[in-house]
């Protein structure tokens, strides 16, 4: 930095010697030759702060990292769970100290004031009932570094003789804005809780949460499963009151030693039934437990939240429900696919959707059952259908179109990528006589074709060559779907053959 290695942070002993951040290493070594240096790694620091923010979500779901070395928690309304605001601040400091960090915490009515108090003052708690005069008096004692302005502006303020925020408060506002910019005034107002802070951290908090805390940690899996059932029972009335059903759930487990584990489950239709939600989560837990759900010393906070919800009208129940009726079938099938997807993985349980496309590999899209039908029709050869399946769609499954009966025969099985073969044909653009696939020679006894499929002309010109498809049957009776890629003499001089499917 600036042409020399510089210190980024120093500990208390070094500070006593007069070493400050920003000093060059050579100067620091000159003062004390036996200095111990460690390389600064800002990325790892940021990752650590993010992990701590995750951990601090056990106190409130609204937590965000406050770079470079802080956390910001919104504890509005959550303080009573911990026995009061003072107790909350003490507990946060104690837990951080137990994790091995030196921390200072402060609670204040506004985020900017809390940040400033934690960094620049010893005051830990500003109660909600503080008047504006008290807040002003508190802010007056803070140095102007608490405003977090640019170094140039701060230097200008110091030159003008303004050293603490109290000096700024005592001056009239218009000349301050003219000299140091409107930003300074906005920050000052945010500090005294008069105006909104221009920088608010983005808290992502789900709308529907149910949580349980345990003084001792939960270690046994049966206890975790039972708690998940109770949490699902707590969550469902919230969903019902809002008239929505959950499409994606997330269960977060906070361990006593600070680790956070997450479990997510998705459904193919909005669910509100606590038994089914709990069953899905337990399936997910079972599939994770095979690799090892490390409970360590136990989980002491479990939180279940519905991340994605969808409008769900209450189901109409018939007087006499049929045994194998149509409505019951759809629901049962959706539940079965959800259970299979929870254990095997959502992407491994797929439904097939016909698409209006010429290329055989794009004519059918396989979308995971938990998502809806894909919308987009691929335009390029390289635009494989799997890309659509990665985006969750909102269209319900009933939109599967049955498309008109086709005249051309299609194989029952298709390879994901056509496999190259060596084929010999009588004429370059005729059907194959024999071909070698996977080192086995097959002799063609019967064939049907050719069927010409050209790449979409509206795509890029270099994307694909015309394909001539043949159904062939070899001497043993096996059926193959081969194609020759490239028209002889017009598109390519040496057309290649591939096998695309089997029947």
């Amino acid at each position, binding site marked *: 930095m600036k042409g020399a290695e510089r210190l980024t942070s120093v500990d208390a002993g070094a500070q006593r010697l007069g070493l400050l951040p920003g000093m060059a290493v050579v100067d620091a070594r000159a003062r004390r030759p036996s200095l111990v240096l460690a390389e600064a790694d800002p990325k790892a620091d940021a990752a650590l702060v993010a992990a701590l923010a995750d951990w601090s979500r056990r106190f409130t779901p609204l937590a965000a990292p406050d770079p470079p070395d802080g956390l910001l928690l919104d504890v509005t309304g959550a303080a009573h769970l911990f026995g009061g605001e003072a107790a909350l601040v003490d507990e946060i400091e104690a837990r951080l100290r137990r994790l091995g960090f030196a921390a200072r915490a402060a609670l204040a009515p506004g985020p900017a004031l809390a940040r400033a108090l934690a960094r620049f003052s010893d005051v830990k708690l500003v109660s909600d009932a503080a008047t504006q005069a008290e807040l002003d008096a508190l802010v007056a004692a803070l140095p102007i570094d608490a405003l977090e302005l640019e170094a140039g502006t701060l230097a200008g303020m110091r030159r003008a003789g303004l050293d603490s925020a109290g000096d700024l408060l005592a001056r009239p506002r218009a000349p301050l804005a003219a000299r140091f910019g409107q930003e300074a005034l906005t920050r000052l107002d945010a500090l005294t809780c008069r105006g909104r802070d221009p920088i608010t951290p983005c808290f992502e908090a789900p709308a529907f949460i149910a949580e349980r805390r345990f003084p001792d940690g939960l270690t046994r899996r049966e206890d975790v499963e039972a708690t998940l059932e109770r949490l699902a029972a707590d969550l469902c009335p919230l969903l019902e009151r809002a008239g929505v059903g959950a499409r994606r759930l997330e269960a977060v487990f906070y361990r006593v030693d600070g680790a956070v584990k997450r479990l997510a489950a998705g459904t193919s239709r909005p669910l509100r039934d606590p038994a089914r939600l709990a069953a899905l989560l337990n399936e997910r837990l079972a599939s994770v437990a095979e690799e090892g759900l490390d409970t360590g010393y136990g989980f002491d906070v479990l939180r279940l939240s519905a991340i994605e919800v969808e409008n769900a009208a209450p189901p109409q129940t018939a007087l006499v429900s049929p*045994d*194998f009726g*149509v409505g*019951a*079938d759809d629901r*049962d*099938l959706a*539940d*079965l*696919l959800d*259970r*299979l997807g929870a*254990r*095997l993985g959502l992407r*491994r*349980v*797929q*439904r*097939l*959707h*016909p698409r209006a496309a010429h290329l*055989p590999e794009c*004519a*059918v899209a*396989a979308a995971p*059952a938990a998502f809806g039908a894909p919308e987009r029709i691929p335009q390029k050869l390289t635009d494989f259908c799997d890309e659509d399946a990665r985006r969750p769609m909102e269209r319900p*499954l009933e939109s*599967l179109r*049955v*498309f008109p*009966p*086709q005249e051309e*025969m*299609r*194989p*029952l*099985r*298709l*390879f*994901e990528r056509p496999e190259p073969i060596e084929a010999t044909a009588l004429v370059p653009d005729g*059907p194959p006589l024999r071909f070698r696939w996977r080192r086995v020679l097959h002799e*063609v*006894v*019967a*064939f*049907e074709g050719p069927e010409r499929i050209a790449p979409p002309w509206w795509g890029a010109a270099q994307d694909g060559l015309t394909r001539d498809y043949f*159904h062939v*049957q070899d*001497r*043993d*009776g*096996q*059926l193959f779907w081969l194609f020759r890629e490239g028209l002889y003499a017009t598109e390519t001089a040496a057309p290649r053959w591939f096998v695309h*499917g*089997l*029947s």
Partner: protein
Amino acid sequence: MSQSGLAERIGFLRARIAAIEARDRAAPAPARKGGDEFLDALLAAGRGGLSEIFPFRPSDAPAAAAFALAMALRARAVRGGGALVFIVEDLGAREFGLPYGRGLVGAGLDLSCFALVRARRPRETLWAMEEALRSSACAAVVAESALDPRLYDLSVSRRLLLAARRGGALGLLAPQGTEAARFSSAAELRVEVAAAPPPVFVARPPLAPFAPFRWRLRLLKARAGVFGEIDPSQWRGIVFDPERAAFRHAFPERLPAEACDRPAAAPPRRRRA
């Protein structure tokens, strides 16, 4: 022990076993004797329970899977609804490809009640098959898997059979890579399938009609006592008609005559069903 006492005991045990089996079954399948024992054995087993479809050679695995699909379609037509779940393993998908939607539609399948499950290992396949059979939403479950005789034995197959009976579905297992003689299972029907070779009358003829739905198969095991003796060495040809979702005997091929030899007006043909 005297001979008549022995026969009495055996009869008593048979009655006990039949009572236990009848308790599990939802509805006893009526044994309808049509003309042919072979087709009847197939159709009766197709009403529910567990069937195994083995390929004759390892390269006949796609034909075996197609036959399993045909039996599943027939089961769905008989039940009049229900879903079809197809379970494929990663290894099988790489070797033989995945089921193709357009081809399935050509076989008469409605894609809105079809689900494709991709499992990683045979253990997952068996678990998914049991779950799907037990839920009453499925009419048939087809599973292709590279099974090992140590993994799939009497107890596992018995569990699958009970699950199929409870859910009223047909379970079709198509093991790949191991020959049939090494498995002992509680399945009600065991069939070995090979692709039907084309008749070589004319050089390079066009494909026969219903070419993907023609197979040669032989019954290795069927529910004994109802259909008399089955001959495990006899190969029969069979055809599946996708429009009617029905099995037919494979007749010898009739190729249309050349255009110049055909009469001006076609004589009325009698269809043999």
